[in-house]
């Protein structure tokens, strides 16, 4: 098997490990930051600042991303959507995760990563198929190389490894970026995915959005490790930490991890320090487990404000550009709003269509049973009764 030979690391069998090699895999003492909350460039030797153009482009996505979160929340309040796990406050992570990838690459998002999925190009209405309750997933994963938004935590990280492994075996240059939350790092699948990726030396960037909560459970109950990025060395891959509200740093760090993977450098782990500004979903009551003060402390670190200040300060972001970006965000929001105000037609016959490539005889019988029931319900028993009547009032 083509297992990894990690440069700078001798085989463990010899029992000769040097601290130098260790430090190459350990994350930096401080999360990488390139633009501070006041919008000032804070240089870092290892990571050049992305170009103004890049930053401006990504900032535009940030504005739309925030707008998508706001619009989705509004639709939930209006009852047009059942539930929405918002990434409000984490949009820099969302945007960076999508824009560092090329077309041939794959993105593996979670339920919270709608903004990343849309930023990658997936039609937002197709994304909301899930959350409005129409079907489990609404977009074609192959169209933009975006996997379904994973619900069972950390399971998707292994799928990402498999996609990367298949691509590597075929000699393709595909890189896979796989996202998960801080809570998901506790699952066994997280461990197995990182280990498989390292042993098979496949091009996967594991991207943890550490937003300090797993529903109500704070990071301190999730781990007592120095950082989540410190887990990487246990798999023989480098770990890095980044300010998760700093779009510039995220683009630099994730971009470099993607390049490394593409160049045959193998997998790596990136932990972004960010914060879940809203409740887990609208169904959650965050006041039960954290104070308003906790949340407020993060307001000044907002990723949009910071990048805007920086870009404005350098005159990279003009007033007209801002107006344009706002208009673009408005357009997305209105497309979403309109799309969700019309009910999609859902055919119950589809329930049986995709379970197997070809329906089993059992499913043919069951589909037929449902078809008959619906036909009977549709045929009014007496002229006055139509539609979704119950059997009782039919007879």
């Amino acid at each position, binding site marked *: 098997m083509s297992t990894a030979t990690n440069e700078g690391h001798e085989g463990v069998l010899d029992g000769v490990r040097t601290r130098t090699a260790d430090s190459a895999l350990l994350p930096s003492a401080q999360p990488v930051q390139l633009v501070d909350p006041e919008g000032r460039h804070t240089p870092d030797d290892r990571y050049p600042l992305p170009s103004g153009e890049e930053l401006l482009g990504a900032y535009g996505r940030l504005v739309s991303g925030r707008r998508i979160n706001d619009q989705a929340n509004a639709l939930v309040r209006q009852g047009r959507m059942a539930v929405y796990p918002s990434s409000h406050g984490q949009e820099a992570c969302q945007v960076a995760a999508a824009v560092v990838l090329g077309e041939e690459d794959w993105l593996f998002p979670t339920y919270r990563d709608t903004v990343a999925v849309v930023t990658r190009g997936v039609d937002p209405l197709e994304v909301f198929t*899930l959350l409005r309750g*129409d079907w489990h997933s609404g977009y074609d994963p192959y169209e933009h190389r975006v996997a379904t938004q994973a*619900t*069972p935590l950390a399971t998707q990280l292994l799928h990402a490894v498999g996609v990367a492994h298949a691509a590597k075996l075929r000699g393709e240059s595909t890189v896979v970026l796989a996202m998960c939350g801080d809570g998901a790092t506790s699952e066994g*699948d997280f461990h197995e995915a990182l280990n498989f990726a390292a042993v098979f030396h496949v091009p996967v960037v594991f991207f943890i959005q550490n937003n300090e909560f797993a529903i*109500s459970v704070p990071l301190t109950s999730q781990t007592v490790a120095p950082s989540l990025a410190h887990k990487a060395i246990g798999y023989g891959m480098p770990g890095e930490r980044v300010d998760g509200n700093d779009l510039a740093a995220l683009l630099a760090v994730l971009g470099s991890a993607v390049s490394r993977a593409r160049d045959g450098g193998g997998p790596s782990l990136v932990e972004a320090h960010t914060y879940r500004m809203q409740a887990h979903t609208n169904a959650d009551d965050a006041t039960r487990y954290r104070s308003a003060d906790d949340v407020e402390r993060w307001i000044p670190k907002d990723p949009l404000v910071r990048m805007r200040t920086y870009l404005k300060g350098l005159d990279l972001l003009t007033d007209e550009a801002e107006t344009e970006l706002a208009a673009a965000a408005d357009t997305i929001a209105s497309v979403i709003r309109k799309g969700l105000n019309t009910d999609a037609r859902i055919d119950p016959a589809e329930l049986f269509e995709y379970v197997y490539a070809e329906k089993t005889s059992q499913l043919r019988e069951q589909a037929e049973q449902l078809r008959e*029931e619906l036909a009977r319900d549709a045929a009014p028993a007496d002229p006055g009764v139509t539609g979704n009547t119950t059997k009782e009032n039919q007879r």
Partner: protein
Amino acid sequence: MTQTTEAPVADGTGQPGATPTRTAPTTSTFAKALNAALADAMETDPAVLMFGEDVGPLGGVFRITDGLTARFGEERCFDTPLAEAGIMGMAVGMAMNGMRPVVEMQFDAFAYPAFEQVVSHVAKMPNRTKGRVRLPIVIRIPYAGGIGGVEHHCDSSEAYYAHTPGLTVLAPATVRDAYFMLREAIASPDPVVFLEPKKLYWSKEEVDLAELRRTFDDGEAPRRIGRAVVARAGTDATLISYGPSVPTALAAAAAAAEEGRSIEVIDLRSIVPFDDGTVTESVRRTGRAVVVAEAPGFASVASEIVARVQERCFHSLAAPVLRVTGFDIPFPSPKLEHFYLPSVDRILDAVDALQWEA
């Protein structure tokens, strides 16, 4: 044969000799009854611990553990790291070492990561050690559909557990049973998979929780593990059901009554052990049976019930034992679930198909 036809009020309430000054029954939800059962068990026995994901300060995503951390301290009711095998495996060790852990799997499908621990240890350790190690663990699982939940939040997973020897598998359908059965599960020396029908969490009954507690603590509550109950008496056919499907079965029986058919409804309550006595007695009497359950029908608990009933009541049967179950498909998305779930209509269709003319 086990006959358990206790009247709904027979749990020590309303008995002659009860103190006349007792406060009138109040209303409780299914969720509140579970919460009270946990609190009462924790108060009664310091070995009872509650842990899982978000069960601490939040009180669980369904609030079943609401207030327990505040009341009993964070050593008795606490959040764990997010790892279900971890929760289950730690529970095994705790039970080995004198505790009676109650764990919550946040949703049915999120219990699957713990499957190896459940099948290979929770279910087998007592047998492996010839009973030297008992594992009094309760695995609480908010389960099944009917709440418009998205994928992975609505699985009916009872068959996986019921097929695994060594596990007790319970599914209450009433507020009163929710209380008594959870208490009984926690008191059981065996590991119990305790299935809480999510859609019933907000259902209500007139019950006085304090009275239920007294009844249980005084040993006056009839045993429910292994005991089915006739939830509605009838003579023409028997509906056999449990958990989330019991209210649907009862509604179907009520509808059938309007058409002049007298349908008996059995609420199994206990899937393992199974109460052959109550079921067999009823079907032999009515001669017809329909099993109603939400899980996909193939190789399910419903299949087992059909198999047992026809084995034991063959010569009393006027028609085959039929099933109204979920289809053999993954649980559907919220807007489609009503096509999937057993409904009053579908049950009445099945009853109609019981060869009444034959």
